[in-house]
């Protein structure tokens, strides 16, 4: 939906993913949308260089989040939130499902 503005479908998906879950890493985003990893990594780098997102290293994972100092963050989030309204409900549910509380080890599902 924003591809024409952003010039990249991967970039749109990355931004929507981070807007929904507050953070994301390359393999997670690529896996969720079933898109190749290389363009996701490339676009994450571009967004980081542009100051839109920043990276937090957690162990061996590069976790990306919105840069709170990005001047257009509020407006960007509003736009992304509008775009999300047009996504299929099922995708939206999956996108927003992000278990944060810890799960006891060996607990049966």
């Amino acid at each position, binding site marked *: 939906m924003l591809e024409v503005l952003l010039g990249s479908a991967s970039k749109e998906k990355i931004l929507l993913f981070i807007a929904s879950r507050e953070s994301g890493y390359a393999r997670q985003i690529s896996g969720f949308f079933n898109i190749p990893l290389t363009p996701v990594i490339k676009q994450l780098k571009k967004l980081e260089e542009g100051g839109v997102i920043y990276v937090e290293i957690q162990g061996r994972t590069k976790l990306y989040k919105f840069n709170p*100092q990005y001047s257009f963050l509020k407006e960007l989030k509003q736009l992304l939130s509008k775009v999300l309204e047009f996504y299929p409900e099922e995708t939206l549910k999956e996108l927003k499902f992000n278990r944060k509380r810890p799960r006891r080890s060996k607990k049966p599902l």
Partner: protein
Amino acid sequence: MKNIGKMSRVELAAFICTHLAKRGIEITLTGGSCVSIYSENQYSSMDLDFIERISAKRKFLAKCLEKIGFYEKDRYFMHPDTELFIEFPPGPLAVGDEPITDIITIETEVGDLKIISPTESVKDRLAAFYFWNDLQCLDQAVLVADNNAINVAEVKRWSLTEGEEEKFEIFLSKLKKD
């Protein structure tokens, strides 16, 4: 002309600023180097962070800087005669979501430097304290405020818009009382 290796920080920044302005690239100095300048080097930063008013093509920028001896390495521009290096962080020139309009000019014998005012420099440093809890940046904001006439009311207004009253009070409590 004075050799780059013999220029002070302000002179080098002014020289670069004027050199690029002549080629249509308008830049403003921001970040840690402003703290160095406004604190008379009580804090030392090795990088000169310039923000472009309107982004020029990177290749053109590199070509212009090459003319005065700077070469690009990773995201930075280095020069063999100085330890200071140049960086062009992504714009716009802003603190939080407010554009910076209070820009002053420092005239030197090698050119004119466009630099954010001491008040904006305080806000710029406080932004890092507010958003990232960076205590070094809080100290830098205090350093600039203690060594320059700043508009405390404006810093307060901006801090409140950012919803950072508590942290603004911390900043205020650290200022010299005289």
